């Protein structure tokens, strides 16, 4: 079959966009259609703020920061195979790093955001060694412990976090004269939400590029070897300890950057956003993103973040205009069986279970299947 499909056009390019050679897999964007797709995305990024309301721009900004954290978690779980239910803790670390460096020390964006990554990465590197002694179930529970111990610290370090009352986290977002919270470009004035959309999704692109470059090169292959069989990886010369701890550090750095951006978007955070049982739910949300989007894919992390963060908002908006059967019109209304929040949580639980039962590699794998079917048609793929 492979020989049948190996048809070349006169120009010497393969006629169908199939990945046949290993070099193709290692490229950033192997086919022309993928490069076109990236250009379309860039154009969308430029024009979206002009067409969407502030409400949806806010939702998309939250999707974007979630995507950055999800990419980090995918590096750890999808590529390296280490379970973490403590991702929310690192988001908290990032948010408080933003509060300290950005708000209290008034450092500019280009200083405090990298510092978020550094602090997150360092703390991740401290936690990482636990993964050397523990695996699977034990590691999952230890990372739950991180949420509780982190919650204790967040609640009590009052000079930094403001204790139970919370603290302001609206760190400055200006690069030189370009203030994303208050954009004046070419005589146009843009709102804070519009500016933040551009900033957050610019950083998503950066994070995706970084992660993609990491996983398509030597370290990425080492991480996947650790995931698939860590003893065998060690035997063929992969330093498992370094890569496991490194994966924790990098993943935490991504989460901390996302946490810093969360602080900027939210402007005010509270320890109960990240610690204890609410933190566990937040962590689970991130794991759900990479499951739904696709484990072990960078694009899947972004898709998963879009689905998981935007879906509840879409359902809420739909419910305001059209009455969904059985769903109450408000939290205290009596015209239905469940509230919108409950419906969203139910859907969330069902999505996790259904994806793991029927397509544990997520939307990315579904997309790959569809694409392969179309590309190889009429031959079975």
């Amino acid at each position, binding site marked *: 079959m492979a020989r049948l499909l190996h048809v070349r056009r006169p120009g010497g390019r393969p006629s169908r966009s199939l990945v046949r050679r290993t070099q193709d897999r290692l490229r950033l964007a192997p086919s022309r259609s993928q490069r076109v797709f990236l250009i379309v995305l860039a154009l969308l990024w430029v024009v979206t703020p002009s067409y969407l309301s502030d409400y949806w721009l806010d939702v998309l900004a939250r999707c974007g920061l979630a995507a950055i954290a999800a990419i980090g978690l995918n590096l750890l*779980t999808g590529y390296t*195979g280490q*379970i973490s239910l403590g991702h929310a803790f690192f988001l908290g670390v990032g948010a408080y790093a933003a509060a300290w460096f950005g708000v209290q020390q008034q450092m500019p964006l280009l200083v405090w955001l990298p510092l978020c990554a550094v602090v997150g990465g360092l703390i991740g590197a401290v936690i990482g060694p*636990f993964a050397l*002694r*523990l*695996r*699977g*179930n*034990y590691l*999952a*529970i*230890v990372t*739950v*412990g991180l949420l*509780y*111990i982190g*919650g*204790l*610290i967040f*609640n*009590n370090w009052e000079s930094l976090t403001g204790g139970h009352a919370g603290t302001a986290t609206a760190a400055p977002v200006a690069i030189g004269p370009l203030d994303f919270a208050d954009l004046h470009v070419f005589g146009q004035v843009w709102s804070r939400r519009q500016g933040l959309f551009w900033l957050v999704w610019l950083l998503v692109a950066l994070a995706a590029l970084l992660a993609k470059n990491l996983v398509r090169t030597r370290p990425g292959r080492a991480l996947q070897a650790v995931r698939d*069989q860590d*003893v*065998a990886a060690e*035997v063929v010369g992969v330093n498992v300890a370094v890569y496991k701890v490194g994966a924790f550090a990098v993943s935490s750095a991504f989460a901390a950057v996302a946490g810093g951006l969360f602080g900027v978007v939210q402007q005010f955070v509270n320890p109960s956003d990240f610690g*204890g*049982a609410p933190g*566990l739910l937040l962590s*689970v949300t991130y*794991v*759900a993103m990479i*499951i739904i989007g696709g484990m072990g894919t960078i694009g899947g992390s972004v898709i998963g973040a879009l689905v998981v963060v935007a879906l509840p908002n879409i359902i809420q908006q739909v419910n305001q205009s059209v009455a969904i059967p059985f769903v109450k019109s408000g939290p205290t209304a009596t015209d239905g*069986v*469940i509230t919108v929040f*409950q419906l969203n*949580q*139910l859907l*969330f*639980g*069902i*999505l*996790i*279970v259904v994806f*793991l*039962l029927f397509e*544990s590699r997520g939307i990315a794998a579904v997309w790959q299947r569809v694409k392969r079917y179309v590309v190889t048609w009429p031959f079975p793929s």
Partner: protein
Amino acid sequence: MTKLLDLCFAGVALGAQYALVALGFVVIYRATSVINFAQGGFVMLGAYFAYNFHQTWGLPFYVAVVGAMIAGAIVGALVEALILRRLLGRPPFVIIMVTIGLLILIEQLVPMVWGQDPLPLGDPWGVRAVKLGDVAVSVADFWTLGIVAVVLAVFFVYFKYSRMGVAMRATASDQEAALAHGIDSGLVIGVSWAIAGAVAALAGVTLAGGGGGVRLDIELVALTAFPAIILGGLDSPVGAVVGGLVIGLAQSLASGYQPEYAPWLGSGFDLALPYIIMVIVLLVRPYGFFGQREVRRV
């Protein structure tokens, strides 16, 4: 001195509740090497079943408790047969996430049926207390302790002497070898989930009894039982009870003495303490005090 005894009794009773929850984890873990994150949901569901049988249908309390255990067992077996059976052999990560998904579902389904507000269980224990010298011990705590002792004894006898119990032990130690000896490991796994469901229902009743009330946050107790099972080792029933008691005692003593003697540890320290103990134990003994060391093969 009275305060110390008071705290110790309260801690032991709390620990007994953790132990019951932890036993549910252990039964499932032994059969399938799965940590069932939905166990907290089962516990909460059990409490609501007992409420429904006793308060809504008017059955006598102890009949309602047995009914709740049967209903819990059925839920456990159903969840295993319909969902977890399809995931046999998948990595632990997948199974953990599916059970978390189930937990989220149970969390939302329960208030749809029984509402958001706390409900009275109507147990005969109430908030009464017995005086032992200077120390007042609540009747519900006595019952909890008694129930844990009985459950542990039943477990011991069951695993040691019954055919099914021996089959479960065989499956726990080597699934393939057990299969080769004609043990129906599918049945073993199903029965394990049913037992876990029944024990969870019992735990739910002890948590809702004694004036606690049937409420949604009962499920959170499972999160505090995690350190207990890690402490004891994931596959040891005795470890679960010891771990539960240690965590319960530590938490109770910390809530009594830490604000006075070590305020610098911060408010809410007793909530994080189980996890702090867990991390320290894991650094010393990665497989708990009674757990079996996992053998890894390439």
